[in-house]
């Protein structure tokens, strides 16, 4: 099986500061891959390079055999990589449905088809009943799911999730875990998540990468990684699982 996403020797510096230092990993089609690490480890910088927000100083990122590093966010999305934002960015004055319609219009030119697809996605994410609400009227958990719905409506092959669990209560986290499992299993979407909530990471990820000071310190299956001494001292030590 060839890798869906491969990150090879990617690095990013901001003036003198090395934010991401020669990171390499691959995400296979169909899996859920997690990137964890303490604050300031370079997770978001890495995420932004994959999403096209930042161009790496060195290394390459390829998606389905095509180089995506250095492309614009919209070009990356059109290739099949959708993302969510850590601090959600719904279109506040538009209805929930119209928010998702905009995503659905990426690969659809017919309004009716886009609307049908948007409603299907909303139904999958339990937002169908709220489709006529303004996005600004939603609660945080609902807004997180709207963000996810909008991204999914673009028919991505790969979904990038930037701390999608942040700010959710444990019960809401469990619900989101269930939704993401469904998205991965039923819609066949590969997921790359950056996450702090270990409970969610352990429940979802097939493979993971641990970053510390911009460099990878461990890689592999979650059950092995959490026993790694370096990971425990740098990250998990403060936060038991």
């Amino acid at each position, binding site marked *: 099986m060839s890798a869906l996403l491969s990150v090879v020797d990617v690095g990013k510096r901001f003036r003198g500061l090395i934010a991401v230092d020669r990171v390499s990993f691959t995400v296979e089609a169909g899996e859920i891959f997690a990137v964890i690490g303490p604050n300031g480890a370079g997770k978001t910088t890495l995420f932004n390079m994959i*999403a096209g927000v930042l161009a790496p100083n060195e290394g390459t990122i390829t998606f389905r055999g095509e180089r995506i590093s250095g492309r*614009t*966010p*919209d070009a990356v*999305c*059109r290739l099949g990589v*959708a*993302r969510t*934002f850590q601090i959600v*960015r*719904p*279109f*506040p*004055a*538009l209805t929930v449905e*119209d928010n998702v*319609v*905009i*995503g659905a*219009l*990426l690969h659809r*030119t017919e*309004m009716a088809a*886009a609307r049908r697809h948007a409603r299907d996605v909303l139904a999958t994410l339990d937002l169908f009943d709220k489709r*006529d609400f303004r996005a600004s009227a939603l609660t945080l958990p609902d807004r997180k799911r709207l963000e996810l719905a*909008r*991204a999914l409506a*673009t028919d991505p092959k790969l979904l990038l999730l930037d701390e999608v669990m942040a700010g959710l209560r444990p019960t809401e986290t469990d619900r989101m875990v269930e939704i993401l499992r469904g998205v991965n299993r039923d819609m066949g979407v590969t997921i790359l998540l950056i996450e702090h909530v270990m409970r969610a990471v352990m429940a979802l990820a097939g493979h993971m990468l641990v970053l510390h000071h911009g460099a990878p310190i461990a890689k592999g299956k979650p059950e092995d990684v959490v026993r790694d001494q370096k990971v425990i001292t740098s990250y998990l030590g403060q936060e038991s699982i």
Partner: protein
Amino acid sequence: MISLWRDMNGRGQVAVALAFLVLLFAPVAATRYLLSVLTLILYFVYVGQAWNLMMGYAGQLSLGHALYVGLGGYISAALWVHFGIGPWLGVVPSVAIAAAFGAAIGWLGFRFGIEGVYFSLLTIAFAEFTRIGFDHIGFVGGAGGLFIPYEESRLGEWWNLRGSQVFFYYLAFGMAVLAVLLTALLARSRLGYQWLAIREDETAARALGIDVFRAKMKAVLISSSMTAVGGVFYAFYYNSLFPAQLFDMSRSIELILGPIVGGTGTVFGPVIGAFVLTPLGEILIAVTEKAGINAPGAKAIFFGLILMAIIYLVPTGVWPWLSQRLGFARRRS
């Protein structure tokens, strides 16, 4: 268009149909003065709608739309006066040149990340230096103005836009109706939704695969082209053009007041806005004259106060408030 109709309930549809019929048959009953006011209103509906596409939908604030009115007017008038090229043909180069100016502003603004108020300043700058430029172009009369000769014998030459008040009324009416239909069509199109996304959150729009630069360029091109057509109408309706009048900042402001008062980002906002503001101006002139208030600027002060009151009372515009009050919007199931 069909969706515009379907989104309204029976009451809304009756109201719109009635308004359409009243305007269609207005020349039967209206006096010449009333007809001239209605013509002006419909002209403002048209240009207001053109501006609304760019600001209300795509979220790009242009404060220099007088630029496109002026270019459209001047180019078509010059072609007619100097070369005898009629406006129906002259509208093509007028629109092309106005669109080229729009493209230049858009390219500078959107390519180099001149956003928000700075973009607005850019639009003002273009209108201003074009005004100064036209002051010095002798070919179009410079600051002394360009005049389209008014010849009685030519009246009725609709193919040269020479006609009576009724003729210009129906021309403005047709343009206003087309502008409303075009807005309704665009608002429910893929491009319309891309504009809304950009207006609401550009970063999120980009993350959903929208080519933001392209969508914004389309907005400025469509808006400037439409506005230039309004300029052609203006030139042949008023027959006299002065740079200080056409390109002036106050003309840009005048043009956008209607949609702002009526409600930006709505199909009927610019319509209601024009129907509120233009008669208000006329009424104030009559009232201040009757009351014997001759102080210069008295009308403008009252106009400003009423404008403030409207914006304070219905900040999102008269149309959203009105359509809700009168129960025009269909509840979506």
